[in-house]
């Protein structure tokens, strides 16, 4: 328990060391999640669009094209 306290205190520099690692983790994780979500959203949009185009092509009204 005591060693955990010394670890967190970082020789008195804990209030500088931990925020530095925390802000790094937050920014990098945030950018990763945003990038993955954008990709997933666009992939879903693309497959929806492709599906509606395929259906339009199969319909007789669109057959003249």
């Amino acid at each position, binding site marked *: 328990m005591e060693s955990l306290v010394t670890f967190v205190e970082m*020789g008195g*520099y804990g209030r*500088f060391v931990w925020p*530095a690692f925390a802000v790094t983790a937050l*920014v990098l994780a945030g950018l990763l999640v945003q990038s993955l979500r954008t*990709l997933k959203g666009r992939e879903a949009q*693309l497959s929806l*669009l492709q599906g509606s*185009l395929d259906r339009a092509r199969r319909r007789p009204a669109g057959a003249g*094209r």
Partner: protein
Amino acid sequence: MTRFANPNRFLRWSGRLLPWLAAATILLFGVGLYLALIASPPDYQQGESVRIMYVHVPAAWMALFCYVAMAGAAAVGLIWRHPLADIVAKASAPIGAAFTLLALVTGALWGKPMWGTWWVWDARLTSVLVLFFLYLGYIALNSAFDDPGRGARASAILALVGLVNVPIIKFSVDWWYTLHQPASVIRAGGPAIHPSMLWPLLLMAAAFTCYYLWVLAVRVRGEIVAHKIRALRLRQAYG
């Protein structure tokens, strides 16, 4: 090279690469953080505050690396009109901006206990702040046009002009009087840093590099899919 740069081929091979990049990033961060926070020794002058180095220095390195990669891709896009090059440049910008922001914030958190101040307007700190604004300017200009091709060309010119800032950042610690310490890893005569601190630093740098490649691949895929959506919409609208 051009064989791998076709957008559809890129989707295929980057899809196979993604899980490996993700695994490498997580593994390297795991080992790197253990070494940085637990296994490495405190500095004899700076005490435990030296651990900030393990996030500050890789972030600053990657901020520069990312900018050179972005400007290089932008130049290829400008000269050879290669669509994937424009996409790589655009996808690199937010990642580089994030690294630059981290270098600035962790630098302030390190400067306060070591220099007694969060910020000084000296050559190194100011030129890195300029780098951050160059990234933001690139992102703004890139998305300022209705035609993505025009946005890519205009922002590519900005990225190339801003390239002059990179050697200024690198050599600012030698050219001007500054609070910031000079280079201690990449310098003539070998690294001036003990292996017990060099190894954690190099592992964290490798983790940051893998993270960059991972997020870059995800963002490039996102841009390619966005291009496909735009093309399909046009086909839908004009038959």
